[in-house]
């Protein structure tokens, strides 16, 4: 996996399988502090302490189609390789929270990649789940909440191809603004 956004897509699949109906994803880029923090948090079935201990072991998986589970271990390795850190917390019946901090300027940090496509894939494939996406860069931030879209759409499902095309453009514009647009302070001066 060559982009952090692909890791995020992969980690969020665990939340989907945990039966969550709300998944929060945070990408916090702080070049000034030299950190990039990623949080994936869900309200799914959670894990018992014994299972939680095993999830970072590549030879553990709850699946039966194969014997390895590489998603979480790869993500953890990606963070630690950059001098960062990795935490996973979980409580049965409450949900799971994965947090990884990456060294922003570290040579081994994967590029963030296309978060827009990651979010579109998640929303489009899981129209029954709500997604909250926060992305901040250098103190500027933006938030996408599918519950807002749902309120406008009424009966029209989120996975309608035209809706996904809308969400794709919406994300692309807002993420581009984060990197390119002036901050509130800069606008004033």
């Amino acid at each position, binding site marked *: 996996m060559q982009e952090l956004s692909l890791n995020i897509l992969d980690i969020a699949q665990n939340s989907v399988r945990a039966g969550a109906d709300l998944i929060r994803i945070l990408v916090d880029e702080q070049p000034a502090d030299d950190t990039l923090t990623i949080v994936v948090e869900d309200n799914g079935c959670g894990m018992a302490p014994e299972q939680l201990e095993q999830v970072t072991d590549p030879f553990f998986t709850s699946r039966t189609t194969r014997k390895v589970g590489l998603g979480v271990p790869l993500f953890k390795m990606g963070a630690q390789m950059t001098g960062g850190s990795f935490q996973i917390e979980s409580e049965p019946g409450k949900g799971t929270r994965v947090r990884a901090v990456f060294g922003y300027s570290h040579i081994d940090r994967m590029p963030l990649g296309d978060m827009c496509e990651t979010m579109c894939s998640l929303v489009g494939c899981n129209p029954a789940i709500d997604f909250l996406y926060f992305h901040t860069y250098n103190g500027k931030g933006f938030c996408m909440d599918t519950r807002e879209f749902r309120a406008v*759409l009424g009966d029209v499902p989120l996975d309608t191809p*035209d809706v996904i095309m809308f969400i794709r*453009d919406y994300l692309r514009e807002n993420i581009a603004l984060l990197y390119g647009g002036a901050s509130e302070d800069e606008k004033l001066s």
Partner: protein
Amino acid sequence: MKSLAELQAIRDKMKNKVGLREDSEGATRVVVGMATCGIAAGARPVLAQFTEEISKRGLTNVTVTQTGCIGICQYEPVVEVFEPGKEKVTYVKMTPEKAVRVVNDHLVNSNVVREYTIGANAEE
């Protein structure tokens, strides 16, 4: 700048079509494998291409969805097409370019693209 007003317009446009999808037991399902193996092999752009082509073509009785690892990781990205009353078709080692052809030939014109199927790609 995209605004929620635009979303409202989509809703109004789709409203009369929604019934079609809701009671569509007859809908075709395109299922993309999105486990670690699929994602690492390039499933995300394949999925995006399917969504885009289906939107472009205005195919209202096709849904695109995902599944986990089905155990044939060496063939990822894997895409399965389920059409009511027909046998499942499994496409392997997919790319966005192949996805366009599957939409045009298979979903629109009902011609299975044999050369992309698992049968045609099985290793000895």
